[in-house]
């Protein structure tokens, strides 16, 4: 289970790429692709194992529009990360 102390990296089969057509970022993996919005792309790029999930949340909060409730940012980012994990697209390391 992903929590704030987890260190994440994209699974081996996943490649993060900017789509030359749309400029949007994509996660490419065998036989599929997942188009990411701007925030999701930023989150995916931070999954490098160098920082914890807590630090990812902090960085997203810093970059968010003023007045965005912190609980909403944390909730949405964690939901996205857990969805990626459930699809086998993230590897979860320890604290």
């Amino acid at each position, binding site marked *: 289970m992903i929590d704030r102390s987890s260190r994440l990296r994209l699974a*081996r*089969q996943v490649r993060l790429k900017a789509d*030359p057509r749309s400029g949007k970022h994509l996660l490419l993996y*065998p*036989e599929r*692709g997942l188009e990411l919005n701007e925030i999701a792309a930023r989150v995916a790029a931070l999954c490098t194992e160098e920082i914890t999930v807590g630090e990812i949340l902090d960085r997203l909060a810093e970059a968010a529009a003023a007045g965005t409730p912190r609980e909403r940012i944390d909730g949405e980012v964690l939901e996205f990360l857990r969805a990626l*994990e459930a699809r*086998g697209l993230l590897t*979860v390391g320890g604290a």
Partner: protein
Amino acid sequence: MSEAPRPYTLVAELTYRCPLACGYCSNPLDLARHADELDTAAWTRVFGEAAALGILQVNLTGGEPLVRPDLEALVAAARAEDLYINLITSGIPSDAERLGRLASAGLDSIQISIQDSDRQGAAWIAGRDDLEAKLEMAAAARALQLPLTLNVVLHRGNIARVPEFIALAERLGAARLELANTQYLGWALANRGALLPSRAAVEEARVHASAARQRLRGRIEILFVRPDYYADRPRACMDGWARRYLLVTPDGIALPCHQALGITSLHWPSVRAQSLDAIWSGDPSFGAFRGEAWMPAPCRSCPERETDFGGCRCQAFALLGDAAATDPACALSPRHDLVIAARAGAEEAVAQIAPPPIRLRRFRSAP
């Protein structure tokens, strides 16, 4: 013809040569007529044209792509276009060192097929047993940190061993396990009487796969593709005709799917004569079944038409001789009786003990 959508995946059939002779092969029955293979330069051009069309992934497949001596160069050419590269292979001829060179050239992932965990079963369906060599190739892929998909095509002869295939995927450290029931076209249609499992066997396999999917969630992605003969609704074949996939045969014929050459009522273009862009957006065969204008009743007013795109055109042609007919796999097809009769045959066959005769995929065997 409606406007061409964006293709995402190029299926590059590099050769129809293959050391195996699987009786469910998706290659055409007249293999030997496609022996004039595109060379390295031609494939390199095709990869460039594919990337320019917006394609993001390439599946290097066959036949057996490992029999191409220029496979390393082809991987490098696809990598130069920044395509995500899947190698779809039987793992034979096995060569762990070569796998290292392919990984260095830019391979993103590898799919290795296992015909059976039972040696006699493998020999029955493929004409030979290569399990040990395949397991060595899978281990070599893992040692190279190449993401591994294990693929097993399911049929009456091996479907009872789904739990063993799951255990094998765990042991090999696969990232994905594809348990794909045979699609009854081409060689598999010729062998349907020997291959179609009973409904009970399919259901049992599905239950095993579903339990393993829960248990291995986040570790191994488990796909279970049901046979459309038991689904009552057709599969969304290739995510719709000429909608997401573009396939090129070893000799350069462009198709919307593996089986489309079987639709002999259509004429198919060649990448030797035209660009992929001209083919994808302008060829009348590619446009023939895009959108909904071609749909017969009951498809044209069916609420499922945006989900299944009317099913498989190749199956409609293979079973009915009319590529624009409703897919007989659909319970709403006026000719669904053909599929029901095939199911009844499978139930009777289960009572037999000896493995049924099968026609192996060989270059020289006449269709």
